[in-house]
């Protein structure tokens, strides 16, 4: 019969090989480490803290960028640029716990720049990259009606001015809170409400959305 220590070692024997294998499956992120601490550690130069911050928030921010830009490739570029900026300007973040909101504001700012460039490209006769309208981003199980509604919604949103479109998308596609939308847009709450009110009036004339809870 093996000793308890030996059994522990037997269980852990493959660890040396498994842990150093590059294709090992990614583990779950630790839930206990809060964002403010990670930001503090990242400010102190810990790359692993940056890595955790990235893995915690990147997927959500990529989703936002993709829905705003309608181009997976452009969204990936924006994600890269946003985290590059965020990590280089981490010292400017006044509330470390608000890392996600701060990075979202950077993403939205970069998206606006890209949309301005796209408008310029269209104006000079060059077609901007815009290869994934909302109905093509529908889940596999989405009904035909839902896809149809998404196509209509996509057309309606395109017709909106950029600030209104961004505000509406953040609020109703992403489900961000009003305060978060205002912070991401860099506008006051009153201005954001005005944007949303105009956008909602326009969208709801064409597309049916579930009642707000």
């Amino acid at each position: 019969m093996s000793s308890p220590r030996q059994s522990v070692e037997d269980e852990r024997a493959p660890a040396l090989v498994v842990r150093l294998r590059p294709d090992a499956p990614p583990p779950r992120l630790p839930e206990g480490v809060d964002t403010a601490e990670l930001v503090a550690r990242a400010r102190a130069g810990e790359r692993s803290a940056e890595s955790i911050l990235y893995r915690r928030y990147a997927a959500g921010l990529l989703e936002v960028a993709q829905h705003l830009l309608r181009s997976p490739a452009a969204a990936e570029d924006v994600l890269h640029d946003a985290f590059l900026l965020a990590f280089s300007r981490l010292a400017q973040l006044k509330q470390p716990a608000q890392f996600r909101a701060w990075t979202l504001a950077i993403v939205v700012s970069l998206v606006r720049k890209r949309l301005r460039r796209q408008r310029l490209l269209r104006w000079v006769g060059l077609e901007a990259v815009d290869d994934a309208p909302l109905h093509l981003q529908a889940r596999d199980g989405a009904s035909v009606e839902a896809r149809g509604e998404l196509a209509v919604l996509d057309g309606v949103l395109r017709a909106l001015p950029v600030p209104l479109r961004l505000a509406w998308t953040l609020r109703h596609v992403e489900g961000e809170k009003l305060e978060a939308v205002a912070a991401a847009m860099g506008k006051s709450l009153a201005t954001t409400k005005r944007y949303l009110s105009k956008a909602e009036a326009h969208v709801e004339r064409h597309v049916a959305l579930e009642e707000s809870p």
Partner: protein
Amino acid sequence: MSPLPRPVKQVLVPPDEAAVGRAWVRLETTRRVPTTVRPAIAWAAFAALAAAGVALVVRPAAPAPASSAAASAVGGALGLARAPASPPPVGGGEAAALVSEGSAAAAGSVTAPPRAGPRVFWHGRPTAGAARPSLVEGPAPAPEQPVDEAGALLASADDAWRAGQTTRAATLLAELAAHHADDARAGAALYLLGQMQLDVLGQPAEAVASFQRALQLGVPDDVVGPLWTALEQAQRSAEAPAP
């Protein structure tokens, strides 16, 4: 007609995890080059191109230096070396010097550059009886293969671990981390060392130190999460009162 749910993203596909990973790799690659270096490289390239362009334009108009007696006189007075009129004899009798000491008296016209041919190196006047080095450049010696000491230590640690020699494995991992801290595997080795200290050797304080050092050195992405968890666990164990 069924209304769209709120938020609408419920009916949209989630983001591609591969895209998240690709963006991270790009981010790491971009950050390896400091932002101050990139403009410097761009300016250097621009300056080199501009200089080449200027040289191309100016060159035909420049006077031929070979006929300038003044230039030769100055060169000779400064004792500048001149290129030989012809390549030195290779093999056979006494080798001749490739360069001759310049002097004002010897200052004449600037000679033409040596003819193209095999590259010849002058190793100095040979002493009597000594083996003469080859004057003609031979094939370059094969570079020595670097010894993967960190890999060897890791393999030894693995062998020791499998043989049940935990202390020896821990010593080897500590040695790897201490002497090969710049190796990419040092962080992961420290993580493993910390696990041994925490779970097998019963040394939580040492495990905390190992985990913290692993964080400093950096570990593979897939180890970052467990490393944080293990660090927290080791800290709790180290702070707990002894039974």
